[in-house]
């Protein structure tokens, strides 16, 4: 009994330290976003209650074009999410359930680009996009983010679909269901958590991408939050109240989405590694 409670104590101590390291920086950011700049400048650990304010948020939303950046981020990330789930699930269904000649080669060519350096891809990509007239357009950015997240999405969805017993398809086929019907009536409902995780993954990557947007977006009409935040951080060095508030604004949507999917996240993300 004594041993058991010692173990309990050590476990909690370990968890406490781990989670303090993970969460305190985020907590500090959030608290600071509600402090006035003067309050932050005092360098005090705990602000007085009277120092708490919403001014930072009001100032952030008063910035020129801030809603354009927010809308760009939302439009691009959600489009990428739907495109990736759609194209990825069709592809994964083919790889999981169809006897295709050259399947290994197909699998390789979908997964391999996952290992290509983005900074290398970006160079010809820019030339390609400018020849297609897609530089500084939403469509260009949506296509870009789709192409970089699709390999991983197909990999994990194929793993997910492989885990669905084939007997279910067979039964549906015998009942007169078409191949596409099997996808919609059997695979999609059963693999819904997997589809959500694939969508979440695509959303998070697109929402947070700085590298591709920094080159392919050339005006405020296509800029997303990460670009705006970076510009903001470098131009307003002293106004940390505003910077932290802007950061919280960029975090909130992914956090809300995360709270919906967190239970399935890891099972989904590593599904591609499951027995094939």
């Amino acid at each position, binding site marked *: 009994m004594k041993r058991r409670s010692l173990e309990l104590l050590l476990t909690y101590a370990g968890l406490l330290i781990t989670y303090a390291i993970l969460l305190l920086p985020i907590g500090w950011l959030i608290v600071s976003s509600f402090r006035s700049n003067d309050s932050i400048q005092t360098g005090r650990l705990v602000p007085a209650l009277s120092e708490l304010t919403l001014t930072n948020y009001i100032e952030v939303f008063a910035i020129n074009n801030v809603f354009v950046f927010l809308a760009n981020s939302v439009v691009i990330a959600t489009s990428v999410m739907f495109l990736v789930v759609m194209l990825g699930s069709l592809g994964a269904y083919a790889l999981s359930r169809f006897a295709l000649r050259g399947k290994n080669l197909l699998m390789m060519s979908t997964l391999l680009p996952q290992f290509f350096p983005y900074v290398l891809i970006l160079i010809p990509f820019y030339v390609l996009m400018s020849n297609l007239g897609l530089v500084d357009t939403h469509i260009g950015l949506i296509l870009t983010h789709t192409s970089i997240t699709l390999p991983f999405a197909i990999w994990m969805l194929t793993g997910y679909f492989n885990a669905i017993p084939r007997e279910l398809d067979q039964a549906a086929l015998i009942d007169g269901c078409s191949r596409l019907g099997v996808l919609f009536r059997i695979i999609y409902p059963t693999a819904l958590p997997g589809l959500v995780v694939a969508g979440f993954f695509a959303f998070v990557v697109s929402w947070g991408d700085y590298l591709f947007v920094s080159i392919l977006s050339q005006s405020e009409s296509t800029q997303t939050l990460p670009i705006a935040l970076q510009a903001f951080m470098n131009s307003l060095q002293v106004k940390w109240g505003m910077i932290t508030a802007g950061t919280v604004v960029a975090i909130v949507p992914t956090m809300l989405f995360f709270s919906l999917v967190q*239970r399935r996240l890891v099972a989904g993300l590593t599904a591609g590694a499951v027995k094939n």
Partner: protein
Amino acid sequence: MGWTFRYSQLSMSQTVHSDEPPSVGSRPVTHLRSAEMRHAAFGYALLAPAICVILGLNLYPTLSGIFTSFTDQSLLNPNTWRAVGWQNYQRLLTDPVFRISFIHSLVLTFSAVILQVILGLGMAHLLIRKVPGIHWFRSIAMVTWVLPIITAVVIFRFLTLPNIGLINIILTTLGLGSFTRNWFGDPAFAFLLILVMHLWRNVPFYGIAFMAAMQAIPQDLYEAATIDGASSWKRFWHITLPNLRYIILVMVVLHVTFTLNNFDFVYLSTGGGPVDATEVLATYIYKQAWSGYMLGYASAGGVIMLVILVLLVILSRKLIGGFAEK
């Protein structure tokens, strides 16, 4: 992919799937060849859009980038270029900043991935304990992983500010005021901070993934070992670790790629400075292309990165174990 797990270890895979042949083989014999061919054609049609996007927007640019690396293409006039052979590569090898970036990239990737595996195993050991409230800890574990990298960078820059950063405030409060500094501005600490940001973001992902895999290890293996008098260290070494080999391999391959490829952490936090102290291949190549306008030269650097990535993935596979091993 022929990647296999010894045990279906993730909650979603609890339905054990048999190794039966693909559905076509088990369909009634009455189906004619033409039906099978139509069936396969439908499969290709389903895959076509995804393959087109990936080949067109990933594979083609990469091949084109390899080609560009042998030219003197410039961003100022991308449509006129001439072939220059290995000239870009020769220049890279004599460029001291490229060499520094190369070393930084390798050091960062190795140290980040090795530390992440070790810390991830530690975190998995905590998360697998069935103590009250553990579900709460498990559910929020990945919170740092979903943050956009720019926000993680803001958080760390804010924490390490010279006068008003939390780290310095704490140091001063503890009477260690002499240790305070502008952390990101100090060449000795800037690189360390980049490493810390990688750990902060990725370790929980390892922890949760390893924990999920540990849950699938049959308990009787541990019971039998305990009866045989194996110490907890021996049980970890001989039961846990071998059973985690495949998930470790998957995580290592994913994060070798992530870390070597990662541009955002370095570029957004230090921009490669102070005085190249944190310059890595990704940021160096980006600057050559988009500030130096030398697309051909930058592509050559990118090709070297590609080669390193492929070699590291092969190396991880060799070290940790074969994919197809039973």
